[in-house]
């Protein structure tokens, strides 16, 4: 057993840390969030130059062939900077699908990700489905050599920035069956696709997507028709591992900021950090953080295990991270007093991001149920 990072991994971490330092201090981040586009293309180019966009892809596909630990490092450091550019959506989630697609799909699409030309988003959630990935009313029917897609996708994270979507659709079966789900690549410019973009409370952007008789070639199918559910669940678990990593980065910043603030903020003639009740709260924040880091390592190391093991790892990590996210976010605001309530201070922004991570890809109740049903 060894929980240390290799030299290469440490180098990767340092690279991202210095990117954040140079390009992503809080003011710069806020300027990006408030800009018309809501992300910065130059940053995306830098990600490409640094090789980050090719991280998980095989060397054959032009990537660096790194694993989940490297992804964890990137996501964690991005979490510290509250990076809004859709790295996880494009590289981890959509990249995850593409890595497992046919040779022709890989060839067609992976270079565009690695070079930074294309940004991708995963359109899976539907209003009626809550967190159930299999609850799909969006349908695709084969018409000759094309699928015709009809349906509606909600709160597609990073949607406004994407030019390509991976869409989960029902090709057969009943609304909630796990059989009959397929995964299709849909270009944003497709006829019949309309999109409504909006900001999200954590400074990111998302979209509502309506698909009306959108026609895509059957070559755009990832995996086998009707057999997409398993693949989707796997990719979502990998995504969960990445957002847990992002979360621990954000938690770390909040914990450090809170400790620092309590050392310097004086009331009643002493630093408020001298009050034992605040000390204990910060100790609890620290313990929650450490447990979250541990669960994040755990899930990232277990992504390749057999189903039940992976299911429990991902859901277990998500439950721990969601609990810690809430406790640390709320406590950081509380201990900063009025300052914690302001938009001006970074603390509230970390709190908000963490609060959205809580229910991304399923909230605590959802994952407890998944955990229980995994046996």
């Amino acid at each position, binding site marked *: 057993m060894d929980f240390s990072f290799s030299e290469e991994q440490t180098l990767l971490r340092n690279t991202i840390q210095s990117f954040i330092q140079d390009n992503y201090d809080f003011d710069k981040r806020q300027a990006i969030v408030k800009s018309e586009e809501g992300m910065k293309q130059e940053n995306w180019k830098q990600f490409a130059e640094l090789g980050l966009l090719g991280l998980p892809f095989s060397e054959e596909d032009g990537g660096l062939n790194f694993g989940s630990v490297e992804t964890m490092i990137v996501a964690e450091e991005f979490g510290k900077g509250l990076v809004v550019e859709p790295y996880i959506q494009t590289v981890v989630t959509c990249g995850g699908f593409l890595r497992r697609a046919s040779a022709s799909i890989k060839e067609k699409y992976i270079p565009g990700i690695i070079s930074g030309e294309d940004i991708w988003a995963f359109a899976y959630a539907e209003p009626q489905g809550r967190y159930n990935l299999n609850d799909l009313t969006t349908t695709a029917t084969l018409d000759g050599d094309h699928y015709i897609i009809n349906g509606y996708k909600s709160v597609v994270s990073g949607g406004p920035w994407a030019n390509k979507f991976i869409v989960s659709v029902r090709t057969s079966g009943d609304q909630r069956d796990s059989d009959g789900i397929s995964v299709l690549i849909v270009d944003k410019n497709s006829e019949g696709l309309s999109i409504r973009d909006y900001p999200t409370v954590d400074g990111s952007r998302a979209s509502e997507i309506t698909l009306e008789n959108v026609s895509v070639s059957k070559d755009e199918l990832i995996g086998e028709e009707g057999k997409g559910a398993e693949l989707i669940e796997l990719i979502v678990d990998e995504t969960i591992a990445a957002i847990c990593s992002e979360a621990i980065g954000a938690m770390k910043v909040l914990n450090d900021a809170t400790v620092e603030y309590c050392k310097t903020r004086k*009331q009643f003639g002493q630093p408020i950090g001298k009050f034992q009740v605040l000390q204990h709260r910060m100790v609890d924040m620290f313990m929650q953080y450490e447990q979250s880091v541990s669960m994040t390592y755990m899930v990232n190391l277990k992504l390749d295990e057999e189903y039940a093991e992976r299911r429990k790892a991902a859901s277990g990590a998500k439950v721990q991270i969601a609990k810690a996210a809430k406790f640390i976010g709320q406590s950081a605001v509380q201990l900063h007093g009025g300052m914690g309530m302001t938009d001006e201070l970074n603390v509230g922004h970390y709190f908000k991001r963490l609060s*959205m991570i809580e229910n991304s890809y399923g909230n605590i109740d959802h994952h407890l149920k998944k955990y229980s049903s995994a046996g």
Partner: protein
Amino acid sequence: MQLGFKEEDIKFRDEVRSFIKETFTDDMRKTLSLSKNGHAGKDLHVKWQKSLYERGWMAPNWPEQYGGAGFTSTQKYIFESEMAREGAPRTIPFGLSMVAPVIMEFGSQEQKDKFLPDILESNVWWCQGYSEPGSGSDLASLQCKAENQGDHYLVNGTKIWTTMAQYADWIFCLVRTSKTEKPQEGISFLLIDMKSPGIEVRPLITLDNSPEPHQEVNQVFFEDVKVPIENLIGEENKGWTYAKYLLEFERGTAYSPGLYRGIKNLKDIARDTSIGDGLTLLDDNDFLNKINECEIQIQAMEFVELRIFSALSAGQRVGPESSILKTRGTEIGQYLQELAVEAIGYWSHPFVEDTFANVNEPSIGPDYAATITPEYYNGRKTTIYAGSNEIQRNIISKAVLGL
């Protein structure tokens, strides 16, 4: 021991209900429901308060000689409960329940004549200038300085977190008039016209991101502001005593009626939320248990409140025990907000900056969703302000438990 109200109280309750039905219009309800921080613009609040004034119900806690409603303590409780139950706008407390009691108790006759009628009629909007950047929980360390220049004070310094100062005509301030060994002994209570030259109000945007003019708080700057000597309340350097008196006046508001309303809203949301298979979130036992557990906590609050209220009716003094109300009331309120965010699932993500703005597009998700996450964020304030919950627990441990 017995439960239930007397017949005349039930009659009063029905009067209050029909008043609310008539006066709290659908328009007002709609506007208020668009707020992310509980405030819905000056006009709405003033309009509401003026109708209360016309009914004679603006000031349940004032003595009748000043225009108080003349309620019995039971009626007060019923009145407050009914208002909260319906989600009616809360009367803005700064004039009505903060500065007015101080003026009544310690102000001069001129001050009473000048200020109280306008407060009662909602002609003048007040804000509270206590906190400073360096002085929050430790209010007595405040630095904003007022130098006695004979016929006026010269005020220099700043106040922060000033709720709705952007609407205010007047501000009541605690200011430092002398440097004493005990910081409490050099503080005075001053009334300041917000139109005085040298005052600047800067908005502070909070986590709900309500844009101007709907921001909740501000920082107020004073630069060589001249305040007539006659705007001093009581004696110079006695301001701390008056402020403490005010704090006592503030204790003992009932939280449970508003919290029950929160439960009702939460159930409505859960009933409106599909979890598939034709089921709603109310059919999900995990969630239902949380709602019910919360409801039980509220009932526990309600009966603490009823016990306090009945002690008050019996003429007993209620002391620091009432810190229980603030502490538990705000914590349960925050939990309700968390559950609302939880209920709406992914609809908690979309952000609408100006929820009051007229937009032609349909809402993203259900129309009530846009305010829910910002309300949760904004609600974090409730355990910070009005004596943070850490401070409340300090009070209970010291003053009640004797630790």
